[in-house]
């Protein structure tokens, strides 16, 4: 049977190469030959049309051949190389593949290669013996092929199924000496394939030289083809048998699958029909195609367990037994998980048909969902779209049932044997299972899907649309649990709800708040009736959790989300108060990483909120920690930083990847940095101006200074392009007291495009700076009202920031210069330094004396006059 596969690929490659053989050398020797071979003449044009496909396929087959050879000699690096080439080649021939379908020989290679690699992987001894290059290549290739094969999963599984089936058949019934199993395949196939090329190659060589040889090789070729055709037909027969056998097995559940396959087959046929017209002359290949179509049909015929014996009366106990039987296979190695899900579905249908009641249905549904979750053995892998859809549907249905039937009790703590699934009038159903866990798991799966989708693709948007459904399910569950569940469960589900709410900006409420004055009363009412504010919901849910929750984690998360939500909606004071009251800052470093990420997100949002409210200092403080580390991206869980491999291994990386926040919840990093830099600028520049002469100027923000330095180092100053350049340019103009340019640097179209529509407060902070430096013609310079200027200056005088007095009649500020002169400054510095010197000197002395700190004990102490001690009019 395996021969079928081997020859299948060969015939394909063969036929393509035989067709190909003419096209490449068409301009050369073949012309003469064609004049001789009349029959070939009209074919020629057709072949030219087909040549693109053939060329591609030949390229593929050649590559495959080399791969198989490399596999045989265990040359992994070669294998990897070739595989990469193959992938590229396959990509190149994409258009053809789209038209023709994935070539079976390609799938075959993928499947074989994966098996082979897995086998090698398992073989620890062999791996040890392998040299370093090969071992490395093996692991990379293994990963690659795994990823790659995911795209062709259905094809591969179908192929594998057929193979498995046939080999077992062979092993048990036929007397052929083939050993069943993948190994024999591996051995056989390359061998069969290697057999094919020699005539091929020689053909190429000879054909150019003499035509007779080529024609003979043509014959040769034809022989081969017919051969394969035979084998194909032979296999077809067997295939048919197999199919029928499988159908015997199938009976009930097969019906759907059969329909599916027959549909597919029909499609196949149609396709083939079209092709037939084109490829009339290749009847033998057609036969082979038939065979292919035939074995596709088997797909449905997975070795399912027989559902029920024909005559059995179907009642609850039987179904439960069956269910358990199916479930026992769960988690075992050889179990086909897809088939299991199918079985469960079928079982659900059966129980539905036989009116076994909701109890059993609920139970089955639970298990379906569970096995859906189980489908992916790997924690990192995510559900595929169709699985996800089924999962959502199932949960929805389950919830429907639960809502419709008040007499179903579900719970984790209901023991397996105390379940009550049968329909009795008196007793309510009791089913073991936890809907909350399922929904939570669903939510996690959703996050996983979002994490694994490219955020810039349409697919992501499509996936995001499911969010509504997820929220809906959570809402429904919430409703359900509010009536039935324990407080703990309610807390959990509330948290889920909060998690889906906190990062969304409530535009409706926002509009309402804005339009409160302008709009008419009736409109407001209409809007209000649409639904409650998210703020209100958050408040209610969070308060419940605060009151009722006993696990610390949920409460922490709820608080953080609540703060985030407040901050997002610019309710700065509430957010801040909540943050301060929670005392989370003290012990957040003991929390687990996801909570820490949430905390970071909250802090950042808080900072941005403060910025919006004009609390520059608070904004700066909130953002400082995140920004100064330079790892904002990582801290917010919005992406991994490129780091050395030794710092984390693949395992850690996987864990970290799982922690990432889905893209739609991201905080714009550029906005974040911009906010930070601007607030740093607004703080730093006045500070710099005020403390120009200080010996040791403290930097408020290192990062900002860094940006400034970078800006200064630029040899050529063009107009600012990036956000950072804008900020640097703005701070420069601010230093000069040029308020207007500063403002325009920060608020312009370029910056606007970067989410920058929240900035009313620059003015008043800005004015501080230049005031310290110069104090002329204030009103003109800053376009401020006289009273405002007056108040600002007064405030500064009171705060002793500005030594000046206002002269009312002339409307001027009289500055009293009290800054120490540079000489005085210098003297102070000198005094400080001398103090240090003396101290050092004393230390030497102490060392000699063997008494530490003796100097300070001896009673005289050098008094260093610090700046604060100097009277103002010194």
């Amino acid at each position, binding site marked *: 049977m395996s021969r079928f596969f081997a020859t299948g690929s060969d015939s394909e490659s063969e036929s393509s190469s035989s067709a190909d053989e003419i096209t490449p050398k068409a301009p050369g020797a073949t012309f003469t030959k064609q004049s001789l071979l009349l029959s070939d003449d009209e074919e020629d044009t057709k072949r030219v049309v087909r040549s693109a496909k053939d060329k591609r396929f030949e390229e593929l087959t050649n590559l495959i051949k080399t791969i198989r050879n490399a596999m045989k000699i265990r040359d992994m690096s070669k294998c990897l190389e070739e595989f990469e080439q193959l992938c590229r080649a396959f990509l190149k021939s994409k258009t053809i593949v789209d038209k023709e379908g994935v070539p079976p020989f390609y799938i075959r290679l993928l499947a074989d290669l994966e098996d082979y690699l897995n086998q090698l992987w398992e073989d620890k001894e062999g791996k040890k013996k392998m040299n370093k290059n090969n071992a490395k290549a093996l692991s990379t290739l293994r990963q690659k092929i795994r990823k790659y094969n995911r795209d062709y999963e259905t094809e591969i599984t179908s192929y594998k199924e057929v193979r498995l089936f046939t080999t077992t058949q062979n092993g048990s019934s036929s007397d052929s000496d083939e050993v069943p199993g993948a190994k024999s395949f591996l051995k056989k196939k390359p061998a069969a394939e290697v057999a094919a090329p020699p005539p091929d190659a020689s053909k190429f060589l000879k054909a150019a030289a003499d035509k007779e040889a080529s024609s003979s090789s043509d014959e040769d070729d034809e022989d081969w083809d017919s051969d394969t055709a035979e084998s194909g037909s032979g296999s077809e027969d067997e295939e048919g048998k197999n199919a029928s056998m499988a159908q015997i097995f199938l009976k009930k559940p097969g019906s759907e699958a059969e329909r599916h396959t027959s549909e597919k087959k029909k499609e196949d046929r149609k396709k083939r029909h079209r092709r037939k017209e084109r490829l009339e002359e290749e009847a033998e290949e057609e036969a082979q195609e038939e065979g292919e179509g035939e074995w596709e049909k088997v797909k449905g015929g997975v070795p399912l367990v027989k559902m029920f014996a024909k005559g059995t009366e179907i009642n609850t106990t039987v179904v439960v037994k069956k269910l358990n039987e199916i479930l026992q296979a769960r988690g075992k190695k050889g179990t086909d998980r897809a088939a299991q899900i199918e079985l469960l579905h079928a079982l659900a249908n059966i129980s539905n048909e036989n009116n076994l009641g909701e109890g059993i249905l609920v139970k089955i549904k639970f298990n379906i969902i569970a096995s859906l979750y189980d489908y992916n053995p790997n924690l990192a892998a995510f559900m595929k779209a169709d699985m996800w859809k089924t999962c959502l549907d199932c949960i929805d249905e389950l919830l429907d049932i639960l809502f419709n039937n008040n007499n179903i009790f579900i719970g984790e703590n209901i023991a397996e044997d105390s379940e009550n699934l049968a329909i009795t009038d008196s007793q309510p159903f009791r089913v073991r299972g936890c809907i909350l866990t399922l929904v939570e798991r669903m939510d996690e799966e959703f996050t996983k899907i979002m994490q694994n989708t490219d955020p810039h693709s349409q697919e992501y948007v499509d996936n995001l649309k499911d969010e509504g459904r997820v929220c809906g399910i959570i809402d429904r569950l919430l409703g359900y649990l509010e009536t039935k569940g324990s407080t703990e469960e309610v807390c959990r589900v509330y948290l889920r709800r909060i998690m889906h709410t906190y990062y969304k900006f409530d535009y409706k409420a926002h509009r309402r708040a804005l339009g409160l004055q302008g709009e008419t009363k009736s409109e407001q009412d209409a809007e209000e009736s649409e639904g409650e504010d998210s703020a209100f919901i958050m408040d209610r849910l969070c308060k419940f959790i605060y009151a009722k929750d006993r696990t610390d984690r949920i409460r922490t998360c709820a608080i953080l989300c609540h703060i985030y939500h407040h901050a997002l909606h610019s309710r700065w004071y509430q957010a801040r108060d909540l943050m301060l009251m929670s005392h989370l800052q003290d012990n957040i470093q003991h929390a687990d990483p996801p909570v820490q990420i949430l905390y970071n997100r909250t802090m950042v949002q808080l900072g941005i909120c403060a910025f919006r409210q004009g609390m520059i200092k608070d904004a700066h403080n909130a953002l400082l920690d995140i920004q100064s580390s330079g790892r904002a991206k990582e801290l917010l869980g919005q992406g991994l930083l490129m780091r050395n491999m030794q710092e984390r291994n693949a395992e850690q990386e996987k864990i970290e990847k799982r922690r990432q926040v889905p893209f739609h919840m991201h905080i714009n990093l550029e906005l974040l940095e911009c906010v930070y830099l601007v607030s740093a600028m607004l703080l730093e520049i006045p500070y710099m101006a005020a403390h120009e002469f200080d010996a040791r100027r403290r930097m408020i923000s290192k990062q900002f200074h860094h940006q400034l330095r970078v800006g200064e180092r630029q040899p050529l100053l063009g107009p600012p392009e990036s956000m950072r350049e804008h900020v640097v340019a703005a701070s420069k103009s601010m230093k000069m007291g040029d308020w207007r340019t500063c403002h325009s640097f920060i608020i312009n179209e370029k910056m606007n495009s970067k989410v920058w529509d929240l900035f009313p407060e620059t003015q008043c902070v800005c004015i501080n700076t230049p005031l310290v430096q110069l104090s002329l013609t204030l009103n003109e310079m800053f376009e401020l009202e006289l009273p405002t200027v007056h108040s600002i200056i007064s405030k500064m005088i009171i705060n002793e920031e500005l030594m000046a007095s206002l002269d009312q009649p002339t409307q001027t500020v009289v500055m009293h210069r009290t800054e120490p*002169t*540079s*000489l005085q400054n*210098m*003297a102070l*510095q*000198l005094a400080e*330094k*001398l103090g*240090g*010197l003396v101290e*050092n*000197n004393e*230390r*030497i002395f102490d*060392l*000699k004396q063997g008494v530490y700190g003796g100097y300070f004990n001896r009673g005289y102490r050098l008094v260093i006059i610090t700046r604060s001690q100097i009277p103002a009019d010194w």
Partner: protein
Amino acid sequence: MATPTLDSPVKQIQIEGLVVLKMIKHYQEEGQGSEVVQGVLLGLVVEDRLEITNCFPFPQHTEDDADFDEVQYQMEMMRSLRHVNIDHLHVGWYQSTYYGSFVSRALLDSQFSYQHAIEESVVLIYDPIKTAQGSLSLKAYRLTPKLMEICKEKDFSAEGLKKAMIGFEHMFEEVPIVIKNSHLINVLMWELEEKCTVADKHELLNLSSSNHLEKSLQLLMDRVDDMSQDIVKYNTYSRNLSKQQQQKHQYIQRRQQENAQRQTRGETPLPEEDVSKMFKPPQPPPRMDTLLIAGQINNYCQNVKEFTSQNLGKLFMAEALQGHNS
């Protein structure tokens, strides 16, 4: 800085006005900012008095003429001067200074080699900035015999300096200077003074700007920083040393104990001479630089003191005048 009693062969220096003018001219032509100009002094010793009668500058040589032979140049110069019947004996060298910063290793080394070769040689330090403010600043220095000895032995360790009883104040000795002009020139001077108008003398009360003071402070601060560094270095050194001493001590004790045990058991004692090999004493930092820095700091302080006392005097004078007027 000068010690009151001079125990060197030269007790007084007499400089020709010509030399002073030549030095000033040299600086004005070639020296800029903190750049330093140098030259050779020529003259002869009369009893305990060194008479400097002429000088010539060292040419400013840049990187590109590295192969310039200075000795050759000096010999040529002296021969030429001798041909025109000028004193041709080498009696020292002169150097300009920037805000009084001249106490350096380079100066020490060259003055040492001069004094080593020609016993009576001196170094003249000319301060152009102070001179520009109206008071000619010219100082002559010699190394003290103590310092000479140390330099000869090249022992700059703390112990060596301690043994020699040398502090920063005993490093250089200042030799008093007398400027002598020929009578003709003196007559000319008198005449010029007669012609001088009163207006120029008002300058006397002018408070010189604080720029000078600032510069001095800046330099002083730099030196203090250096000093601190040196001290810290020395501190670590001595700490390391004592730590090592302790280790050494412990080691020896252990070895002794072991040996005692071995002796009781009748075995041969272990050798003890590898101790010094095992514990290499840390390299002591040279103290000469510190000494020089201290000297320099002292110098700056003198400068500042001088400057401020003058200015204060002026201030008081002005106050008195004002009070008198009103």
